[in-house]
């Protein structure tokens, strides 16, 4: 089958129309160039399907040898944490890409024009509050925010939604309420601090953000001959794309989870100002799903409530896997500016609300 297909692509390849429609604004991105270079003469080209097949055969033959690397407790623990972060994230990622596929195929752009205020400065807080509607974690919100931008929603509003929905949706707030049985005000503090931070980030993007930093995901090339086919192609594309970056984030989180010594946490526990920043950094490193992080925060009993609030506000907005997902979806130039700023804003909002409420 593959030789048929590669020869068929050789037929369409020289077509000038296809070449021009495919030259999108981001076509300079070198990561997508295909490793195989079929020559028009050859009937059979060595493409990624062959790489995949041969790679799998080698790996299956070498299974015992590979499994024998994983004997030390550190490596085994890191492998378990890696697999569990990916496995745990996949249902949420699937939810996110299904929604982004539905947005691309079934929701007309005029819908968002109608429901969102015309002025982006007003659309930002509306999008922030709309975050309540998506009961997922941060893995779901990245493809949805990408889908919203592709549908013409102002980037500032879509980014606010990206930050607020994993932090303020009902599932997360209820789990925070349950995890802090003796400090129910934690749930309210989390809601307010997260909403404040995400709206501030939206306004900051509106004021200082530059369009060229942001790669808005393209959709048109994925639309098929029917709405259902468009839906399938957008969902599959977004899953493969975001999933690859999720794996990078999960890998980094697993390595840090296992190899970073935990003693430094104890050392800063009784210094309030330092502990807020330290717990913010811990949230980045651990990359715990926002639906579970309240229980982790509750277990960090040696820290002040404000410090733990910083953990809860930063976690859903900046962490290893989220950074990787953002870099993959919106481009690296975006992520290296957006994530650190979000971290600073989130820690400040958490300190402010914590000082007021906790």
């Amino acid at each position, binding site marked *: *089958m*593959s030789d048929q*297909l590669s020869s*068929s*692509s050789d*037929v*369409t*390849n020289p077509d000038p*129309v*296809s070449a021009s*429609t*495919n030259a999108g604004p981001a076509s300079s*991105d070198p*990561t*997508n160039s*295909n490793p195989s270079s079929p020559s028009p003469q050859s009937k059979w080209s060595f*493409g990624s399907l062959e790489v995949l097949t041969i790679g799998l055969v080698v790996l299956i033959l070498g299974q015992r040898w590979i*499994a024998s690397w994983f004997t030390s407790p*550190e490596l*085994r623990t890191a492998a*378990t944490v*890696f*697999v*569990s*972060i990916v*496995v745990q994230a*996949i*249902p949420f990622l*699937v939810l996110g890409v*299904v929604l982004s596929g539905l947005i691309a195929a079934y929701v*007309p752009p005029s819908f968002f024009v109608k429901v969102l205020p015309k002025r982006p400065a007003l659309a930002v807080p509306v999008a922030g509050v709309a975050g309540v509607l998506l009961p997922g974690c941060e893995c779901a919100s990245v493809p949805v925010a990408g889908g919203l931008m592709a549908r013409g929603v102002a980037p500032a509003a879509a980014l606010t939604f990206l930050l607020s929905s994993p932090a303020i949706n009902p599932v997360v707030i209820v789990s925070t309420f349950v995890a802090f049985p003796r400090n129910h005000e934690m749930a309210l503090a989390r809601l307010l601090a997260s909403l404040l931070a995400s709206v501030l980030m939206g306004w900051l993007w509106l004021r200082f953000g530059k369009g060229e930093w942001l790669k808005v995901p*393209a959709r048109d*090339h994925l*639309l*098929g*001959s*029917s*709405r259902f*086919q*468009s839906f399938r*192609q957008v*969902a599959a594309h977004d*899953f*493969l*794309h975001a*999933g*690859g*970056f999720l794996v990078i984030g*999960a*890998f980094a*989180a697993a390595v840090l989870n296992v190899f970073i010594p935990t003693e430094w946490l104890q050392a800063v526990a009784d210094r309030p100002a330092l502990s807020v920043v330290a717990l913010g950094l811990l949230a980045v490193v651990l*990359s*715990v*799903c926002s*639906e*579970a992080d309240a*229980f982790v925060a509750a*277990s960090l*009993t*040696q820290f002040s409530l404000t410090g733990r609030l910083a953990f809860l506000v930063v976690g859903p907005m900046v962490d290893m896997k989220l950074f990787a997902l953002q870099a993959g979806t919106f481009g690296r130039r975006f992520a290296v500016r957006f994530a650190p700023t979000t971290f600073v804003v989130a820690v400040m909002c958490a300190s402010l609300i914590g000082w007021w409420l906790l």
Partner: protein
Amino acid sequence: MTREVQAVVLVFVGGAILRITASDTYLRYVKESLRPWLLASSIILIGLGLLALLDIVRESRREQAGLSVQGAAERGHLGDDSRGGNPDGGGPRLDGEPDLNDGEDDSSSHHHAHGPSRAAWLLLLPVLAIFLVAPPALGSYTASRQVAVVAAPGSDAQLPTLPPGDPVPVLVSDYALRAVWDSGKTLEGRNISMTGFVSPGKNGKWYLTRLTLTCCAADAIAVKVLPIDAPSAPLPDTWVTVTGSWVPGGGTNNPNAIPWFKVASMKVVGQPDNPYE
């Protein structure tokens, strides 16, 4: 990445999730309550992959029928929304639209920037880890790096009395909760059995340990109980069932307390289906 490989990767990822969810393997990584979501997402992924493969087969058949060339020229106006009113349900179409996809995604040099990036290959890493390495459940290594935590009960209401049974099986986390936050009142005078793994402590001590999950193994929190008068100190990560009774000691009303348990008998057991609590 060609469209065939994209489809195959989707099927592989869905298949790996389905495989661990069909057995109890998924319990090593995530909470039991995630199971329906894992099943649903694996079926969606396999479905997306298989339908994409079907598209490819259909298109190559159609091309063999020689209908491809004039279709390529119609590609320019496909980005608009005019297909919205198209009642076609995805069935075979003979006007060249589907050829768009060939030009986009096949292993030809001009498809960059639109297909998923090369990072998508990385999705094979967790698949390979699941099939080739099958990482084990977390154990004493994780537990011994953590401070034991006994979360306070959700309300100040009276804890329910233990169910009948002699010995009565009790979760390690339940025992710790009752011992630390209720001064062992509901445990006193009962013959209790608990199952957990061995994690090493200081000075040759060992703890009966269980990890509790909220969502996945990355958020595992260790609960520890100190066995008193245990007949021997088993090796770390050995699973044991201990039978005995509550004794005061280890501290109360402190989330980091490690309560005591007086062991009457102990036997080595296999790892339970769900290694976490």
